[in-house]
C-alpha cells in the first residue's frame, strides 16, 4: 500500500476539520444561552481537540496554537472552573472563526497572526483584565482580519464537492443499470428492424430517463439549514452591536433547494435579516414605550408551496412608513412630487426596491454597505424568484421571497414568434388566452397608447413580444398585417402581471437551462438558452425584464380604469369556468378554481390498465377520467391529441380527458340545477346559445375512483352529535351544492338564503351552531356584516366563520380579516372547504388561516 500524497493528507485534514468545526458556532451560542451544558462543551472541545492534534502532526503550528488556546478555555468551562459568559462566547466565536479562516488558507496559515485571539482567550482564563485585553484584541486583529477578508470570500465561492446520501447514490446506480438494459434492448430491436417493439422500449427509456433526472436532481438538493444555520450568529452579533435585543425563530430548515440556489441565496437573505434587525426592530426602550416586549422577534420561515419554495422574514418592529419612503424619494430626486402624490401606498412601499433609494435615516455600517434592496431584488430575480413586501406601521414587516426548487430544469412553454421559438418558464405563466379576430375589437383596447386586454373584467396590459425583442425602428410592424387571432400568454412576475402576445403556442417541455456566453450576459429579456429536441437552440424569456423593455410599470398605474375592472371582479357570483366540448355538440364546463393545470397529450400515451385509463406522466401515474363512462355523454371522438384537465382531490392528482378546449368564461350563477342534474353534473347554464353542463369534478371522481373518497378528512362531530353548520348563500345553486357535500360528509347543515336569514337562525333561542359558512356578496346582509355581528356578540366569540368566495383577491382577504373571518375558501373547492371545516371544528378559532387563504389566492392568480 502506498502512502497518500502529502497534499491529499493536508486537504483531507482541512475538509475533516472544517467539518468538525461547522457545528461549533451554533453550539457555542447554545452554550451561551443554556449555560454550561457539559455535554455540549465536551462536543466542542473534542472538535477543537482533534483539529489541534492533526495540525501539530502536520506541522501547522499556528493552527495548533490557536486550537490549543480555545481548547484551554473550553477545558476550564467543562470543569466548571470558568462560567460561560457573553464575553467568553464572543472571544471563542471570534477565535473559531479565525481558526476556520486559517484552515481555508492552509498554505499560508503558518505566517498568519493569531496573537490577538490567543491573548483574548488567555485573558479569559486569567480573568481580571479581560476587558482591556478584549479591546486590545479588537484593534490587534482588525488589520489581520482585514487582510484576510478576500480569502474567505474567494473560498466561499461555489464548492466543488458535494455530500450525497448513500440512498440517492444507490438509486442512481440502479437507474443507470436499468438504462443500460434498456439501451441493450433498444440496440437489439433496431438491429432486427422490429418497429413494433420500439414503442415499449422507448417508453421504458423515457421513464428511466425521467427517474434518473429526478434522482440526479435529488442529489443536488440541500437543506436550507445550510444557509439558515449562520443567521443566529448574524442576529446575535448584530443585536449586541446595535444595542438591541432580538430573538430569531427559524422554521423549515429541512426544506430542500438546489445547491446552486442555496449558495446564491445566502447573501440576499443575510441582507434582509440584517435589515429587519437594523431598520425593523426598535431599541429596547422604544419597544417598551410602545408596549411591546423589549426583545424583538424575527421569524424566518421556509415552506414548499406549489412547486416553489417560499421563504418569509417577519419582524415585529416598526414597519415601513410609506410617507417617509415618498419623502426620501422626493429628496433624492428619484420621483417628482406629482408622481409620488399619485402613487398608492403599496406602490410607494415598493419604492424601497428602487435603485438608489435608502430609507435609513442615518447610514450605519450595518445596512449602508452599498448593497440596497434593489440588489437583493435583482439577485433573487436572477434566480428565477420574486420578492414581495407587506408592512404595517408599528406592527412589523414581512418579506416574502419565492424561489424555484432548481435552476437546472425548467418546465416551460414553447412559443413561436415568426420562425423562431422561445421558452417561457411555466412558473411565470398564469394562463393562456386566445382572442379570435371577431373578438379583437371588443377585447383589445388602447389606453394612452398602450394595448390592454379585457380579461374577465380586469384590464391586462399587453406586451408584443416582437416589439419587446426588436430594437427601435427595426423589423416588421404588427399593424401592417393584422393577425387573424391573438395568442396571449398571461405572465406573472412579482407584482407585475401582463399578457405577452406571441405568434403561436407550441408544446410544453421540460428544458435544461444553459447559460448564455459572456457576450450575451447583458441581453435584456433573456434568462438563458436551451437545446430543443431537434437540436436547435431556443432562448428562454425573462418575463420580468421583458416588461422593463416594454417600459411597463407595475400594476395599478397601468390600469387606469381599474375601478371599473374591480367592481366586476368583486361581483361575487360570476365564476370563471373552463369551457370544453366533447365531440361536436356537447358543451361542458369546470370551475377554473379547481383546475391545477391543463396538459396536451398524444392519444397513444394513454395506457389501459384493468379497465381504467392512466397516463404515465413525469415519472408518476395520473388516473384519467372520461366523461362518457360516467355521465350521459357521447364517447369522445378519436383524436390524435387530447387535453387533460388536471385537478386535485384527496391530495392526489386526477386528470379529466377533454377532446377540445373552448375558452375561459365568466358564468353567472343562473344555473338550472334540475334539467340535466345527474351524479357528476351539477347543472347547466346557457353560454352563447349553447347549453353548457357544469361538471362536478368531485362527484365525477367518486364515480370513477371510489377509493379516493376515503382520503378526505373525516367529519368532526361535536359532543357526540353531528356538528351543526350554518350556511348562508344567496345563490340557490351554490347553496344546494355546498349543503349537499357538507351533508354527505356527515354534517348537519342549516341552509339560509342570505345573511339576515342566517342571523335570525343563529339568534333563534334553540339553535346552537358549531360553525358558520357564509357567502360574501348577499342581499340585505352580506358576509362581512354577518361576521361583524357575530364577532360583536360575546355569545359567539369562539364560533368559527368561514367565507366562501369565487376568487379571493388580497383586498377581500384583508377586509375579511378585519371583519373577523377565520378563513376564505373557494366555493366549488370541496376538498379545501372540508379540510378547513374539519380543522376549525377540531381545534376551534385562533388557528392561523393564513396558509390556506394565501394558497387560494395564489391559485386564483
Amino acid at each position: 500500500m502506498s502512502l497518500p500524497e502529502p497534499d491529499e493528507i493536508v486537504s483531507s485534514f482541512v475538509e475533516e476539520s472544517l467539518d468538525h468545526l461547522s457545528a461549533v458556532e451554533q453550539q457555542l451560542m447554545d452554550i451561551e444561552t443554556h449555560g454550561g451544558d457539559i455535554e455540549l462543551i465536551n462536543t466542542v472541545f473534542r472538535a477543537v481537540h482533534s483539529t489541534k492534534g492533526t495540525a501539530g502532526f502536520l506541522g501547522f503550528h499556528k493552527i495548533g496554537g490557536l486550537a490549543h488556546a480555545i481548547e484551554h478555555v473550553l477545558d476550564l468551562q467543562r470543569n466548571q472552573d470558568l462560567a460561560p459568559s457573553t464575553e467568553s462566547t464572543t472571544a471563542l466565536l471570534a477565535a473559531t472563526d479565525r481558526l476556520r479562516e486559517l484552515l481555508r488558507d492552509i498554505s499560508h496559515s503558518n505566517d498568519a497572526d493569531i496573537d490577538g485571539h490567543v491573548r483574548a482567550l488567555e485573558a479569559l482564563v486569567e480573568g481580571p483584565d479581560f476587558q482591556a485585553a478584549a479591546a486590545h484584541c479588537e484593534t490587534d486583529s482588525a488589520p489581520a482580519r482585514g487582510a484576510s477578508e478576500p480569502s474567505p470570500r474567494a473560498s466561499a465561492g461555489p464548492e466543488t464537492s458535494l455530500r450525497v446520501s448513500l440512498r440517492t447514490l444507490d438509486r442512481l446506480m440502479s437507474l443507470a443499470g436499468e438504462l443500460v438494459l434498456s439501451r441493450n434492448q433498444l440496440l437489439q430491436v433496431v438491429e432486427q428492424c422490429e418497429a413494433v417493439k420500439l414503442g415499449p422500449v422507448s417508453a421504458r427509456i423515457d421513464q428511466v430517463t425521467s427517474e434518473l433526472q429526478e434522482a440526479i436532481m435529488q442529489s443536488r438538493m440541500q437543506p436550507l439549514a445550510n444557509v439558515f444555520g449562520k443567521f443566529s450568529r448574524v442576529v446575535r452579533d448584530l443585536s449586541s452591536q446595535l444595542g438591541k435585543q432580538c430573538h430569531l425563530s427559524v422554521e423549515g430548515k429541512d426544506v430542500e433547494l438546489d445547491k446552486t440556489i442555496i449558495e446564491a441565496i445566502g447573501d440576499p437573505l443575510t441582507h434582509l435579516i440584517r435589515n429587519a434587525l437594523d431598520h425593523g426592530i426598535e431599541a429596547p426602550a422604544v419597544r417598551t414605550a410602545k408596549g411591546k416586549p423589549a426583545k424583538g422577534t424575527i421569524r424566518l420561515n421556509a415552506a414548499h408551496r406549489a412547486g416553489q419554495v417560499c421563504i418569509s422574514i417577519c419582524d415585529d418592529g416598526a414597519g415601513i412608513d410609506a410617507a417617509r419612503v415618498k419623502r426620501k424619494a422626493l429628496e433624492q430626486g428619484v420621483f417628482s412630487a406629482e408622481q409620488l402624490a399619485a402613487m398608492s401606498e403599496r406602490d410607494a412601499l415598493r419604492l424601497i426596491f428602487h435603485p438608489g433609494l435608502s430609507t435609513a435615516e442615518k447610514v450605519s455600517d450595518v445596512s449602508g454597505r452599498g448593497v440596497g434592496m434593489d440588489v437583493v431584488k435583482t439577485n433573487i430575480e436572477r434566480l428565477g424568484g420574486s420578492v414581495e413586501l407587506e408592512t404595517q406601521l408599528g406592527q412589523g414587516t414581512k418579506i416574502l421571497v419565492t424561489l424555484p426548487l432548481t435552476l437546472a430544469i425548467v418546465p416551460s412553454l414553447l412559443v413561436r414568434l415568426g420562425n423562431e421559438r422561445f421558452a417561457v418558464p411555466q412558473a411565470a405563466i398564469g394562463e393562456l388566452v386566445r382572442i379570435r379576430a371577431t373578438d379583437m375589437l371588443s377585447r383589445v383596447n388602447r389606453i394612452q397608447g398602450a394595448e390592454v386586454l379585457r380579461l374577465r373584467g380586469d384590464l391586462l396590459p399587453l406586451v408584443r413580444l416582437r416589439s419587446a425583442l426588436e430594437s427601435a425602428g427595426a423589423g416588421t410592424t404588427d399593424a401592417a398585417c393584422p393577425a387573424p387571432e391573438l395568442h396571449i400568454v398571461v405572465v406573472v412576475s412579482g407584482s407585475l402581471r401582463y399578457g405577452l402576445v406571441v405568434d403561436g403556442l407550441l408544446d410544453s417541455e421540460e428544458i435544461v437551462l444553459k447559460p448564455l456566453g459572456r457576450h450575451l450576459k447583458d441581453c435584456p429579456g433573456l434568462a438563458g438558452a436551451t437545446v430543443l429536441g431537434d437540436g436547435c437552440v431556443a432562448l428562454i424569456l425573462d418575463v420580468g425584464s421583458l416588461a422593463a423593455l416594454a417600459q411597463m410599470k407595475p400594476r395599478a398605474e397601468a390600469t387606469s380604469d381599474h375601478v371599473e375592472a374591480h367592481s366586476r371582479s368583486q361581483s361575487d357570483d360570476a365564476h370563471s369556468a373552463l369551457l370544453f366540448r366533447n365531440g361536436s355538440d356537447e358543451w361542458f364546463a369546470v370551475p377554473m378554481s379547481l383546475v391545477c393545470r391543463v396538459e396536451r397529450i398524444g392519444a397513444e400515451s394513454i395506457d389501459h390498465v384493468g379497465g381504467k385509463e392512466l397516463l404515465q406522466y413525469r415519472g408518476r401515474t395520473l388516473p384519467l377520467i372520461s366523461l362518457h363512462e360516467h355521465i350521459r355523454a357521447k364517447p369522445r371522438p378519436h383524436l390524435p391529441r387530447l387535453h387533460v384537465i388536471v385537478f386535485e382531490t384527496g391530495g392526489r392528482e386526477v386528470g379529466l380527458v377533454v377532446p377540445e378546449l373552448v375558452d375561459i368564461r365568466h358564468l353567472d350563477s343562473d344555473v338550472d340545477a334540475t334539467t340535466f342534474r345527474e351524479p357528476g353534473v351539477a347543472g347547466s347554464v346557457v353560454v352563447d346559445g349553447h347549453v353548457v353542463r357544469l361538471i362536478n369534478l368531485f362527484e365525477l371522481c367518486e364515480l370513477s375512483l371510489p377509493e379516493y373518497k376515503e382520503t378526505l378528512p373525516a367529519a368532526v362531530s361535536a359532543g357526540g352529535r353531528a356538528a351543526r353548520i350554518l350556511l348562508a348563500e344567496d345563490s340557490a345553486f351554490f347553496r344546494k351544492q355546498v349543503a349537499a357535500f357538507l351533508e354527505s360528509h356527515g354534517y348537519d347543515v342549516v341552509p339560509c338564503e342570505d345573511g339576515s336569514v342566517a342571523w335570525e337562525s343563529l339568534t333563534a333561542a334553540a339553535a346552537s351552531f358549531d360553525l358558520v359558512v357564509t357567502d360574501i356578496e348577499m342581499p340585505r346582509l352580506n358576509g362581512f356584516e354577518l361576521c361583524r355581528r357575530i364577532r360583536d356578540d360575546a355569545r359567539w366569540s369562539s364560533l368559527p366563520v368561514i367565507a366562501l368566495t369565487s376568487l379571493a383577491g388580497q383586498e377581500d382577504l384583508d377586509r375579511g380579516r378585519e371583519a373577523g373571518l377565520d378563513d376564505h375558501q373557494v366555493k366549488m373547492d370541496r376538498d379545501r372547504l372540508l379540510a378547513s371545516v374539519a380543522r376549525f371544528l377540531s381545534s376551534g378559532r385562533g388557528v392561523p388561516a393564513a396558509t390556506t387563504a394565501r394558497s387560494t389566492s395564489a391559485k386564483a392568480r
Partner: protein
Amino acid sequence: MQSGTSLVPDARGEVQLATFPLGDLWLGIDIRRVHEINRNLQVTRVPHAPRAVRGVINLRGEVVTVLELGPLLGVKSAVPSSVQRNVIVTWAGEQVGLVVDGIADVLSVAVDDIATVPEHLAGREANCFHGVHQFDGGLITVLDVGQALELATRPALSGTH
C-alpha cells in the same frame, strides 16, 4: 483588465497558425486556441445582442455564441454563407465561434518574424492583432483572440455589416 493574450512560441521559437481568408485579410490564429472548425452556422438569433454577435448554436449540447469577425475587425466579407466556416476557439474557459470566409493552410511561423501592425491596418482596431507576418504568398494578420473577444462584448460596436 489586460484581456489580450501573448503569443507563446514553442521550443523552436515558432507558433503554428491556422489561417483563414476574411474579406481582404488573411487571418492567422494560434492553433492552440482553435478547438475545431465546422460549418455549423445555423444560428439562433439573439435579440438585443452586441452587433458582432451572429447568434448562438448548439455545439454538442452546449450553447455557444457565434461572432461575426468581419464587422468586428472592420473588414467587409462578401462570400456566400455556404462557403463560410465557424472556427470554435476557447478563451477564458468558454467556447466561442468565429465566422470566417473559408479555411486555408496551417503555417509554422517564427515569433521573431511577426512584425508590429503596419500603418495601413492601424485604423482597424489594431490592438486586436498580435502583428503581421510577411510571407511570399502575402501578409498574414495574426489575431489576438482575447482582445478581439473582449472588443466584441461592447454592445455599441460600430462597423459595417
